[in-house]
């Protein structure tokens, strides 16, 4: 009997090539092709300026330069703005940039000219010789400046408001007015970014013999890039293949597409008849990819003596940067996922999405949820502080209970579907978290530390994450005559171990050896129908599709085997790639079934002789039945009615230095519920990575723009990503497995979870250590020190009780 692979800590098959230096990332491709050309981009040095003139006359004198493009060289669809990927009725003033700037630049880093040369060094030499005359315009930097609107980013959007959106369930303002107690909070989160270790990159090769374009891109959506490249270059979709090779991390930024270079590289390859490569450098990644997180929130909450929220009214302002290619996804997620595991009786949320002269904002791991979680959890803590209650007690009072699922919030989620939670057990999760972190024993610990002159604090934060967002993913399973199983799914991989986790599913569902399964992702030649890897959806969507496709292949295998073995399908079982009749010695392997599934005229090896015309089949019937097709294959798609909602809770114990205000992590605990786990080792790895990114976002990382729109810390020297020395020395993890009823495997997404509660949980712990409210994240030791000085006399100025019960 085959060992069950689903749920096992199976070592990753992809590690072999990565560990030997044999991974193939986009910059590794075509390195042995002597015709390969390289590119570099001239980027705006100004945050807001009109382009008066571009002079490229010196460029072509540089030896080794092949071509240069500016906006004036673009034609047809390439001369139109880049697509607005996700339109929304509330996005009344959506704007996108051009592949190369037309007349105006709106952030430092915006692409202006594209140079192709024999190598990157020469291309950069050439870029430095392009002369651009600018007329400076006033830059709008930060939410306050955007709201003040004394200057506009886009002339035709004078108030800088790209969208206004409001949702309400019940009557929040009336409920707050009637509530025994109310509080208001002002909360801020600053900008950060994904910063994968590999930046963006694209290679394209035009094959004149077949009139086909192949594009390799470090993307989170091959099919998305393919659609855009075909549309922009005026090619039939069938002429364009997009392949996603190994990707050195994504975390959201690579779901946005097409980047200017994703179009300019194929354009250049077609125009020049030679392969062309673009590889982003680190500074470029900071100033010309995407950021996220910056929001300001105004919260009004009304609650009863138990801390039960009777009304919650949130207004917030979201900085979306210079353009809106990804629509309103981030603020919509914030506005809905803010609710977490709670059920405020009445909820209203309204936001404005604002233009600023800074890098565009698209989803970064968590995608608006960290801000929402921060706001809700700060509110819970404020209620607890006001009532003098334990913070876990106030949360428990507000939890959706296990018997209330499916729970309808009466709002519309990011996928245009009702915000309806499918399952969860929040009280059980909280009980686990309290035990894991030692919540009830903490006051003893605090006293013990205080006796040593040390200051410690504890915090917790809870979140719910909509995962496995639609519309669909598909899979194709093909059993070869060797018995090897080749599986393709269209979404991409950037470190999640899909080649392992998906093979585990196939091994169990089809009944084959794990080693015989090979998974391909992100290759439009193998699976042209796909959406992409984002929103913690890969395991749910492609995992389910692969399971369904493997079931189809299995059904066919059993049908053919039943015929060959002259047995009933009900008596058959498959294990290790062999179909056998229960209780007998009769068996047939999947390879042979694959041979029999494909009636042949010509044998190509010993095994295939069995499928030739004088060996097999009923001469009275067509070799392939009317409702059948040749080959042992299965193909299916999974399209859920709505997202499935994972959840979790984190707790942290921190120590703050009484003199330097440095913040040390003493203990970090995670309880996570993403339904059934395919590979617990991979899920824990995802949580570790999320927690580390969360530590970065809470304590170190921020995009430091000056008032002129220059990003002052656009390097790894100055943007403080955590090293091993900044993350917790251990992360205690406990799982709860509440299966999702929405998919056949009962799974929920796990990729983003680790980062969602970080700002909230650190703010809570630091607040607990210091005794004054923490309302703005990230927080540095200097900022904490300043807060200490400010709060020496006045302990609670930013959490304002507006009435007393």
């Amino acid at each position: 009997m085959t060992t069950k692979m689903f749920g096992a800590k199976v070592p990753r098959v992809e590690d072999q090539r990565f560990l030997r230096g044999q991974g193939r990332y986009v910059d590794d491709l075509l390195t042995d092709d002597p015709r390969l050309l390289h590119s570099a981009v001239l980027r705006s040095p100004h945050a807001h300026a009109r382009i008066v003139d571009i002079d490229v006359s010196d460029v072509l004198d540089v030896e080794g330069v092949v071509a240069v493009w500016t906006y004036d060289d673009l034609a047809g669809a390439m001369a139109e703005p880049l697509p607005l990927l996700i339109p929304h009725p509330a996005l009344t003033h959506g704007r996108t940039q051009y592949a190369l700037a037309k007349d105006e630049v709106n952030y430092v880093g915006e692409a202006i000219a594209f140079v192709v040369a024999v190598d990157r060094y020469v291309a950069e030499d050439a870029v430095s010789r392009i002369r651009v005359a600018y007329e400076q315009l006033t830059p709008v930097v930060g939410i306050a400046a955007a709201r003040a609107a004394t200057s506009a980013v886009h002339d035709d959007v004078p108030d800088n408001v790209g969208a206004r959106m409001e949702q309400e369930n019940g009557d929040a303002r009336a409920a707050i007015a009637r509530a025994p107690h109310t509080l208001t909070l002002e909360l801020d989160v600053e900008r950060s970014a994904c910063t994968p270790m590999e930046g963006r990159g694209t290679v394209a090769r035009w094959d004149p013999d077949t009139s086909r374009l192949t594009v390799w891109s470090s993307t989170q959506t091959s099919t998305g890039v393919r659609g855009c490249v075909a549309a922009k270059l005026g090619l039939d979709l069938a002429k364009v293949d997009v392949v996603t090779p190994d990707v050195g991390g994504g975390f959201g930024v690579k779901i946005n597409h097409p980047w200017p270079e994703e179009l300019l590289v194929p354009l250049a390859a077609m125009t020049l008849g030679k392969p062309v490569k673009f590889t982003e450098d680190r500074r470029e990644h900071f100033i010309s990819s995407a950021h996220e997180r910056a929001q300001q929130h105004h919260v009004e909450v009304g609650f009863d003596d138990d801390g039960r929220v009777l009304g919650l009214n949130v207004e917030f302002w979201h900085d979306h940067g210079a353009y809106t290619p990804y629509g309103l996804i981030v603020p919509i997620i914030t506005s809905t996922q803010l609710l977490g595991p709670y059920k405020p009786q009445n909820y209203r949320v309204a936001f404005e999405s604002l233009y600023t002269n800074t890098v565009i904002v698209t989803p970064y791991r968590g995608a608006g949820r960290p801000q929402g979680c921060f706001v809700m959890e700060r509110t819970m803590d404020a209620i607890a502080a006001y009532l003098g209650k334990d913070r876990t007690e106030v949360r428990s009072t507000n939890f959706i209970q296990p018997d209330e699922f499916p729970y309808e919030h009466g709002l519309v989620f990011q996928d245009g579907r009702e915000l309806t939670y499918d399952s969860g057990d929040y009280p059980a999760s909280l009980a686990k978290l309290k035990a894991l972190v030692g919540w009830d024993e903490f006051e003893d610990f605090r006293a013990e530390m205080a006796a040593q002159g040390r200051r410690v604090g504890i915090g917790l934060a809870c979140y719910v994450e909509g995962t496995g967002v639609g519309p669909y993913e598909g899979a194709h399973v093909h059993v070869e005559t060797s018995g090897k199983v080749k599986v393709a799914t269209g979404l991409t991989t950037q470190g999640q171990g899909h080649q392992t986790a998906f093979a585990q599913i196939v091994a169990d569902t089809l009944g084959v050896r794990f080693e015989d399964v090979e998974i391909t992702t992100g290759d439009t030649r193998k699976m042209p129908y796909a959406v992409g890897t984002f929103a913690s959806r890969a395991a749910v969507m492609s995992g389910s599709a692969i399971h369904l496709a493997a079931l189809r292949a299995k059904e066919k295998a059993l049908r053919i085997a039943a015929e060959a073995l002259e047995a009933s399908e009900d008596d058959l079982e498959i294990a290790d790639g062999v179909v056998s009749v229960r209780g007998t010695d009769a068996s047939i392997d999947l390879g042979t079934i694959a041979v029999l599934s494909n009636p042949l005229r010509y044998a190509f090896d010993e095994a295939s002789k069995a499928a030739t015309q004088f060996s097999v089949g009923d001469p009275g019937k067509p070799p392939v039945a009317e409702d059948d097709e040749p080959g042992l294959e299965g193909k299916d798609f999974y399209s859920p009615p709505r997202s499935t909602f994972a959840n979790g809770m984190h707790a942290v114990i921190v120590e703050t230095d009484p003199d330097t205000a440095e913040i040390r992590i003493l203990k970090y605990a995670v309880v996570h519920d993403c339904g059934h786990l395919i590979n617990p080792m991979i899920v824990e790895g995802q949580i570790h990575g999320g927690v580390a990114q969360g530590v970065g976002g809470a304590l170190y990382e921020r995009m430091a723009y000056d008032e002129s729109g220059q990003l002052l810390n656009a390097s790894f020297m100055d943007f403080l990503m955590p090293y091993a020395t900044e993350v917790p020395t251990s992360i205690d993890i406990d799982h709860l497995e509440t299966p999702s009823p929405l998919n056949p495997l009962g799974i929920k997404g796990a990729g983003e979870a680790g980062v969602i509660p970080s700002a909230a949980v650190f703010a809570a712990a630091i607040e607990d250590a210091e005794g004054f409210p923490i309302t703005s994240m990230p927080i540095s030791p200097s900022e904490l020190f300043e807060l200490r000085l400010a709060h020496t006399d006045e302990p609670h100025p930013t959490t304002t009780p507006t009435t007393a019960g």
Partner: protein
Amino acid sequence: MTTEQLHDVRLHVNGSVHEVQVPARRLLSDALRHDCGLTGTHVGCEHGVCGACTVLVDGAPMRSCLMLAVSAVDAEITTVEGLTEDDGSLSPVQQAFSDCHGLQCGFCTPGFLTTITAGLRETPDPTEDEAREMIAGNLCRCTGYQNIVKSVLRAAEIEHERSDA
């Protein structure tokens, strides 16, 4: 514009000799990747902070993005491709990363593997703190370092298991 002067450079990498012609400004990282075709060495920042491009130069970990190819002429260079055992099996450090799930996207991994290979020669029996210190100059965005620290400790174990065998 004048033609850029090229220099004949003989690089000794993983026991092989690579004769390349490069301009003086060519980074060692680019020469390894693009002139020698050894794309296992990755470039994450080009300013010496992330450590992804770390190679061993005469046994010592060096950031190949901070070295010029012309300055590496007389050195013995080891890249990730050169870490495997003579029989093609994984080295203790590589095996430990597989055992401990010490990698996700794999992009920073070559720099960790080379750094730890050198680190364990200097500190064959690291404590957990020493293991953390050993990798404290390399950035990883995926793993949160938890399993990389474990990999360092596991690699030391494997080294001992193999030398005892």
